[in-house]
């Protein structure tokens, strides 16, 4: 969906996807839904984030994280996925890197799982349907911490 934010405004502001040093934040997207993954990639890409990897299930996500480490700043993690669910993948990523910044993507109706994820070490969560504002807000909050 195109919004006016896709176009540069007159008052230049620094894109949210850039770190204080001016390099883009590097994001790994773990989601079994192609549509959701594409949606997140589009939103993040438009703000200057660098999507460095995508994975379609928890197991792949864990492997990609290990490959990319330490050149990855953030993971978006779906909860319900085949092979390995998002909570387990989160747990294993935290075991591997206790400072990992993982943000959960959840459909409504999974409150219990979201709570469990937050207890396990997820930094925040976003409930679908995703909208641009919500996604960018939550992600920049996590990266500022």
């Amino acid at each position: 969906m195109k919004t006016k934010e896709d176009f540069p405004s007159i008052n230049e502001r620094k894109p949210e996807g850039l770190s204080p040093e001016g390099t883009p934040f590097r994001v790994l997207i773990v989601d079994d839904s192609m549509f959701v993954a594409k949606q997140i990639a589009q939103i993040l890409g438009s703000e200057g984030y660098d999507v460095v990897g995508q994975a379609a299930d928890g197991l792949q996500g864990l492997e990609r994280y290990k490959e990319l480490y330490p050149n990855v700043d953030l993971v978006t993690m779906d909860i319900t996925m085949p092979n390995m669910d998002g909570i387990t993948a989160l747990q294993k990523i935290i075991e591997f890197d206790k400072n990992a910044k993982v943000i959960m993507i959840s459909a409504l109706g999974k409150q219990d799982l979201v709570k469990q994820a937050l207890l396990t070490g997820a930094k925040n969560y976003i409930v679908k349907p995703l909208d641009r504002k919500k996604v960018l807000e939550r992600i920049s909050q996590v990266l500022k911490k």
Partner: protein
Amino acid sequence: MRVEYINPFVESAFNVMKEVLQGDIKRGELYLKATSMPVMGVAAIVGLAGDVEGRVLFDMEKVTALRIASAMNGEELKSLDDLAKATITELANMITAQAVTKLHELGFRFDLTPPAIFTGDNMEISNQNVEALIVPMETGHGKVEINVAIRERA
């Protein structure tokens, strides 16, 4: 199907479609349907578990599915490829999940199983004569029939 389950599905279908399709959404008259159901061409299914057993089926014509997927992706999709299918699946998932959340608030315990999508001509879903509630939705991209069959675990 228990009366309390009806509104959450009707409302969340309406709300989610309005949000992601940003058009005029109209709901048709609700009715009950039994026996095996012919499917219009594309059917996304989300299973339900917990206090109940059942499933929610989103049924639409191929052209409607393509138009909806195009609108949701903000680009015109030419064929019902993996991305288009994933988009419709996600729509089904979001609607069902929102309904289930409302049901949680009312004190009913439902769980979702991951959605699946089927396409093809002259499809028929046979379900041992389970009665289903039909919620017809007119989306501006075409008609989507939401077919909800839920029964209590005895």
